[in-house]
């Protein structure tokens, strides 16, 4: 395993994207959905491997299907959205693990290290940039919809469409981290830095900044640690992020 500048650049970009999306995911109390949505990537990866196409493509396709599913559930039912999401995505995980087998399954679940092609790097950077631009551009609309969907609506925001766009961006972010962190850990890249920032920040700008900083620090430090210690990057990234979260707990209790 060698130091790959492409991998570092991509992990930093994915970190920034995850940090920004995570802020709104955490504030919208989508913590469970974050994990659940990422699980649906598994059957997609399994199918892609069976069909001999790029696993990530299969994962992304499944994520997009999952996004519309969550959106549809959110719009149609009033009760127990989280329960339904939990059932649907555990099922996805079960199906995925039946289709996928052995080492492929482990890599899909926990991420892998394989060499990045330049196409993968470019595509990853473009997607990360798209996510970053979307969140920064739409942050005011997202804030209004977060505080009160009705206020957002009377301000001329199509709340349903905004929710769909946010979920799609969310799914893209998951897809960005999928290769490194795997289906099981990628949700935590979105959630942990934002949860850390939420404890520390006192304003929206503060939260976005702290979350991005923690996220980039986790992905780059985690990637570097994984190379140095010869461990999978996914576990290292999540452990570093969790470390930041623990530190935030200490600081809050000290003030």
């Amino acid at each position, binding site marked *: 395993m060698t130091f790959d500048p492409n991998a570092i650049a991509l992990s930093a970009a994915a970190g920034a994207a995850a940090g920004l999306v995570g802020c709104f995911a955490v*504030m919208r109390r989508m913590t469970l959905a974050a994990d659940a949505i990422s699980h649906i990537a598994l059957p997609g990866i399994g199918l892609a491997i069976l069909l001999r196409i790029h696993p990530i493509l299969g994962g992304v396709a499944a994520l997009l299907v999952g996004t519309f599913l969550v959106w549809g559930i959110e719009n149609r039912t009033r009760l127990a959205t989280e329960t339904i999401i939990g059932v649907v995505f555990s099922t996805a995980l079960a199906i995925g693990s039946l289709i996928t087998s052995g080492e492929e399954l482990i890599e899909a679940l926990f991420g892998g290290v394989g060499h990045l092609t330049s196409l993968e790097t470019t595509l990853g950077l473009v997607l990360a940039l798209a996510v970053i631009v979307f969140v920064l551009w739409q*942050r*005011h*609309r997202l*804030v*209004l919809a*977060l*505080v*009160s*969907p*009705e*206020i*957002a*609506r*009377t*301000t*001329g*925001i199509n709340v349903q469409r905004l929710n769909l766009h946010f979920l799609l961006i969310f799914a893209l972010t998951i897809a960005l981290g999928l290769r490194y962190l795997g289906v099981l850990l990628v949700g935590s890249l979105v959630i942990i830095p934002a949860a850390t*920032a*939420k*404890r520390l*920040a*006192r*304003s*929206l*700008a*503060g*939260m976005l900044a702290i979350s991005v900083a923690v996220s980039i620090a986790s992905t780059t430090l985690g990637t570097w640690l994984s190379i140095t210690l010869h461990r999978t990057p996914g576990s290292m990234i999540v452990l570093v992020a969790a470390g930041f979260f623990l530190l935030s707990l200490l600081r809050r209790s000290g003030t």
Partner: protein
Amino acid sequence: MMLLPIPMFTIPATDGCGWQRPGFGAGGPIPILDHAARAASAGIPGSIAPDMAGADTGAGVGADMVSAAAIGVGSLVVRASGVAIARAVDFTAVAVADSMEEAAAGSTAVVDRVAADMAADIAEGAAETKGTRHVGDASCVPALAVRNLSVGFDRTIVIERLSFEVPRGSALAIVGPNGAGKSVLAKALIGALPYQGTITWQEHTRIGYVPQKLDIERDLPITGRDFLHAKAVVSRASEGDVVNVLGLVGLKPESVGQSIGALSGGQFQRLLVAAALIGHPTVLLLDEPTAGVDEPGQETINVTLDRLRDERDLTILFISHDLSVVYHHASNVLCLSRGHTCFGVPRKVLTPQLLQELYGAPVAYHVHHDLRP
């Protein structure tokens, strides 16, 4: 649209709007003829399309038939009576239209309290009314026209066949016991709930909405300033507007630096009212705007709203449990209670008998004679 060769018209000898004529007061009769003609004209400007699939069928068809009937009747009356037609003509037409509407909808006869109240108004010919404002021809379209509105969840009907209009520049209080559907009405009016019937806002209406009691996490890192700034950016208002509205609701700049979850109930309500005022709304829709606000704060907000209504020709719809506030600040009052609705000027509508009927228990509220509007 069926059988409608007759173009939209208003009855002569009114002020051109069919309401708000001096002598009838702001709480005066509702221009059903005028309204019916509007409802019948295809492509109502500013109307909110019902979200619910099929919402335009069923009751919608009924409404179309009513509109047609109303116009037909109206035109007959106008032609028969010549030019000088008194308000009574409106009422005749309204009464006929209503009876035809009930026939058209095929429902059991529901006493139309709106029409009844209008009848009372006409009979009395009330002279002065608070908030009366003469509106010229250009403003003839009411700020809001609601016709045959029904809203329900699952199988429970919360609002059934409700009709009313809100003249531009007036203040409508919506009162009623808990669970009567006041907030549901507010949400339907902004299109946040599926409904049947028609809701027609005047063209180019901008609504400033204050929702009832929001559940905000205490440690949410969004400050009052973040929230107001977001509202300003999305409604393309200036930062000067933000400073301005803070002054209007009496919020100190330092308190908007706090997380919105950490604000006291009263401060948060003021913040919501401030946000609603950003972007120069033409209508304010307030769901218990002063709930949890201390007494002087309530007065500040109510007086500010009154002043803005005058200065900016704002139309205000507010839900309130405070009947003395309703008495002092509303031009009209709409009461909702399962099975009962009423509409009219507070002085006439808010009688002890009606309140008892509405709330199912005697309601005491104190209004000083010298303060009576």
